[in-house]
């Protein structure tokens, strides 16, 4: 599905006739592509290179300096900035805990919903609703109020006789509150899982039942392998998104990444350096480290993916 669909457009033939046709349509092709090309060059590629250049300078938006300083920003980041390492830790912890839990919730509910009957569409839509609104400032404000000392969550705990905490203001629990907000939005990966589950042939389950495989066995030996491309797709997408989280962390912590930096996501630190301190060069260096880290992580995910992702069409070759 979506993963395998991301291949290039059909290759044009290499015969002389096809090549002539390609050149004849060439001008029209570039006319239609021109907004994209202009955008790619002007707003993506050149600014990226410019930011790479900036990261080797000491440029500050309000300052007078604009000198080449070599690797100094990078050296400062790695050896002289405990906040940077702290942000890295918070972000990695957030992504590595919230993403697997979110995917587990998504898969679990998808399997519960994977029966065609009346009302399934509405249920699916309702579970999806948090994904649609969860990234907004409004929901982050609600979340903050819910997990405050006087919030709804503590009143729920009080019903069970458990004494609550000011969760968002407790350094030990603020990040968990943030994770919960991310997990709450499990609807988007759930919808993708549902589409994947529909592709699993029911004969496999029936044959397995005849052979005496129980529900766990069927899940472990049929559902998981058949679904592994979709799991992989969701894992890559959600991990990359998880690393970039900004809005919820910003609103939940009043823009500080607090309490005591416990929710200082990487993007928050980057924002702070760039737009509060106006240290554009330093922030550029942070952005490039981030880009390389994300790139490395993606490569890592894809290379480990080889070990467990099972593509049905590769089988029996």
């Amino acid at each position: 599905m979506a993963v395998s669909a991301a291949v290039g457009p059909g290759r044009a033939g290499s015969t002389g006739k096809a090549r002539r046709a390609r050149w004849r349509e060439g001008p029209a092709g570039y006319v239609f592509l021109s907004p994209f090309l202009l955008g790619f060059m002007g707003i993506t590629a050149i600014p990226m290179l410019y930011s790479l250049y900036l990261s080797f300078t000491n440029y500050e938006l309000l300052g007078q300096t604009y000198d080449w300083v070599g690797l100094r920003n990078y050296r400062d980041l790695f050896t002289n900035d405990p906040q940077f390492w702290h942000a890295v830790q918070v972000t990695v912890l957030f992504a590595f805990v919230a993403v697997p839990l979110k995917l587990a919730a998504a898969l679990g509910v998808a399997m519960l919903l994977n029966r065609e009957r009346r009302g399934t569409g509405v249920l699916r839509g309702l579970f999806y609703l948090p994904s649609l609104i969860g990234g907004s400032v409004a929901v982050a404000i609600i979340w903050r109020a819910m997990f405050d000392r006087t919030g709804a969550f503590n009143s729920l705990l009080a019903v069970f006789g458990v004494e609550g905490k000011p969760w968002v203001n407790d350094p030990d629990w603020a990040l968990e509150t943030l994770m919960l907000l991310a997990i709450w939005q499990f609807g988007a990966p759930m919808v993708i899982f549902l589409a994947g589950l529909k592709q699993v042939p029911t004969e496999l389950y029936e044959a397995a039942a005849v052979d005496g495989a129980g529900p766990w066995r069927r899940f472990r030996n049929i559902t998981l392998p058949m679904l592994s491309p979709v799991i992989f797709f969701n894992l890559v997408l959600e991990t990359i998104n998880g690393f970039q989280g900004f809005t919820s962390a910003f609103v939940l912590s009043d823009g500080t990444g607090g309490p005591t930096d416990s929710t200082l996501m990487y993007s928050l630190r980057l924002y702070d350096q760039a737009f509060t301190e106006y240290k554009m060069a330093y922030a550029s260096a942070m952005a490039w480290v981030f880009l390389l880290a994300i790139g490395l992580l993606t490569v890592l995910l894809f290379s480990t993916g080889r070990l467990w992702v099972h593509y049905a069409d590769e089988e029996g070759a």
Partner: protein
Amino acid sequence: MAGQALSSPPAPAEAGPPPRRTVREQAIAHARRRRRRAAAVRSVVRLVVILAILAVVLYPALWMVGTSFKAPDEVNSNRGLIPEQFWPANYPDGWTALPSVTFGRFFVNSAVIALATVVANCFSCLVAAYAFARLRFPLRGMWFAIMIATLLLPSHVLLVPQYVLFNYFGWINTPLPLIVPKLLATEAFFIFLMVQFMRGIPRELDEAAKIDGCSAYGIFWHVILPLSRPALVTTAIFSFIWTWNDFLTQLVYLSGVENYTIPVGLRMFQDSGGENQIGPMFAMAVLSLLPVFLFFVAFQRLLVQGINTTGLKG
């Protein structure tokens, strides 16, 4: 280990005429009957579990609406779902809570930016998608690969240099940095969605139009544009919702209160002691999500389909 049935490859969908029922198939049919009976019992349990999870998932949203109708003295004492006293005054109170500017201003600003983004995305991405899906030109494969690569590019890398660029143009505190990039097909998600969609439009229609004397431009105008309406609608809905909810870029580029959008305005409300006015703040939060919710109700099916074709995030 788990039986030979597990290791046999999945049967192809259309496999000739059905063979005679073997012992094995009778066993399968028997198992099917037995499982159907067990399934009836299980489906009730399943439904109860689903509804319980749904209640937990929807609670924050319902609590938000409930709290937005609570009287000021009730907010801290009654943390439940239902207000004891229905207090709609939170809405006008929140609307005018900030000095010098009302939430109406934020709504107008958000709407202008969101609608401009919808139009810009629909136009620029459709045009690019047509080139990728239908036209043959040199380096097409390379540009397509680059477009896909930008899907994975974290926006953080572009935040600083784009700010420097737009600052140079004098565009800070105007909506231009939020709209102009969309005119240049920078939302690769939508290009990809439309390419996928156009591959499903029969090429015979292009050929027929070509025989009738249509150029590449004519085919775009008379064939692709009218037939791409479903993809355009999906793009429009997602563009609207994403822009409506977007915070980071609006926070960065809009510095004057008169240009604030809803997310930035809400954030300012929270910052300026809104913690003490939970009711009015929640009322504005509810209002801010209302357009998204209406879109959701009207286009639920399309939204879910949109995620399925491209895997894009909600």
